[in-house]
Structure formats: structure tokens, C-alpha cells
């Protein structure tokens, strides 16, 4: 069965420092991977996705993520965090062999302090 794990409930970083939000996955085949962000009292917004090709994908708001097949990971990164990046981040996986069902991790709260 496909699954996603986000091992950290919360990540704290200082503004200007690099940030990493971790995600690992489990699917039977080659995964499609997504990151979403949820600002307080808002819906989920798509950030970026990995489908195939270059393992480093770039997305909205300066975020990027690195796909690592051997470690089954898809960590979200940003070189320099902003206070406005503080939000709830979700990793999601879709197994192309399972008719498109999209499964989310439990979410990681990012807190960026000035």
C-alpha cells in the first residue's frame, strides 16, 4: 500500500537560514510526489512536484525538493527561510498504478523566527 511519512511534527528555523522539511514514501512503482502548503485558515496550495527526470525540482516561493530513489525520500528545501514561510506543509504521493489516488503525510509545521 502506498504511504507517506513526515517524521517531524514541527521544524524551527531562524529567518535567513536554510530549511529542510523531510518526507519519505512507500509505493510499489515509480512515484509521483507533491508538496503542498497550508497557511492559517486557508486551503492547500500546490508548491511543486516530481514526476520524472531531474531529481531536483523547483517550485513556488523559492522552494525546491530533492527526489532520492534509493532513500525513498522527497525532502523540501529552501536556501533562505522567510518569516512568511511559516505554515503547515504536506507531502503527498500518487502511485500511477493505483488509478491516481493521492495520499498525504501527516504534515509538518514550519516555524520561521525573526
Amino acid at each position, binding site marked *: 500500500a502506498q504511504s507517506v511519512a513526515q517524521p517531524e511534527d514541527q521544524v524551527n528555523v531562524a529567518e535567513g537560514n536554510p530549511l529542510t522539511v523531510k518526507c519519505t514514501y512507500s509505493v510499489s512503482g515509480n512515484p509521483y510526489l507533491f508538496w503542498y502548503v497550508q497557511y492559517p485558515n486557508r486551503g*492547500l496550495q500546490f508548491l511543486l512536484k516530481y514526476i520524472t527526470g531531474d531529481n531536483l525540482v523547483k517550485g513556488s516561493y523559492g522552494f525546491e525538493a530533492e527526489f532520492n530513489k534509493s532513500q525513498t525520500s522527497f525532502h523540501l528545501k529552501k536556501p533562505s527561510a522567510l518569516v512568511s514561510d511559516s505554515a503547515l506543509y504536506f507531502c503527498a504521493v500518487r502511485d500511477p498504478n493505483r488509478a491516481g489516488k493521492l495520499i498525504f503525510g501527516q504534515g509538518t509545521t514550519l516555524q520561521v523566527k525573526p
Partner: protein
Amino acid sequence: GAGVSQSPSNKVTEKGKDVELRCDPISGHTALYWYRQSLGQGLEFLIYFQGNSAPDKSGLPSDRFSAERTGGSVSTLTIQRTQQEDSAVYLCASSLGQFAPNTEAFFGQGTRLTVV
């Protein structure tokens, strides 16, 4: 429409009453998902519709929960005999579906359900 639309945005109901939550997906999207998010928590998968295929109901927590999708477009999530533990934000999303599995899903703003 321009985005996924959910109604109502807020619903307060008494314990034991039935509620219906509505989702209007993006035009042309064949896949539709329902998720539940308890306060500050993760996304719990409820049900997934893909075109005319039988829906994946594996996430529905009890037989009090049901959903339908009429004409491949609008979906209604029904909760019968609501309980306090049903209080949550119910999120709907749509995507181009299994024929474009590399595309992202778009989310509505959610319905905040409070059972008192």
C-alpha cells in the same frame, strides 16, 4: 469554474442531525477527492472518485458517511447522525485524474463542520 468551490464554508449542527457538504470541482476534472482535517492535524483520506469508475471508499470512517458524485461533476458528502468527533474541516480536491496522473490536485477552501 475557476477553482474548486465548497459549500457551506461553515456549518454548525446538533449532534444526531444529518449534514450535506457540497463540492463543485474544476470543470473538466475527472478525479475528485474528499479529505478530513481535524484541528491542526493531517489530511485523512475519505473517498476518491475517478470518472465513471466505482469510487474508492476505503477511507470512510463509518457507515454514517457516504458520498456521491452526480453526472461526473458535483459531489455531496453526507454525514448521518452526526457525532462530536465528526467536527473537522472537510476538504475537497479535484484533478485531471488517472489519464493525467502527473498533474496536481486543486483544493477548495473547505467546510468547517462543528457538531454541538
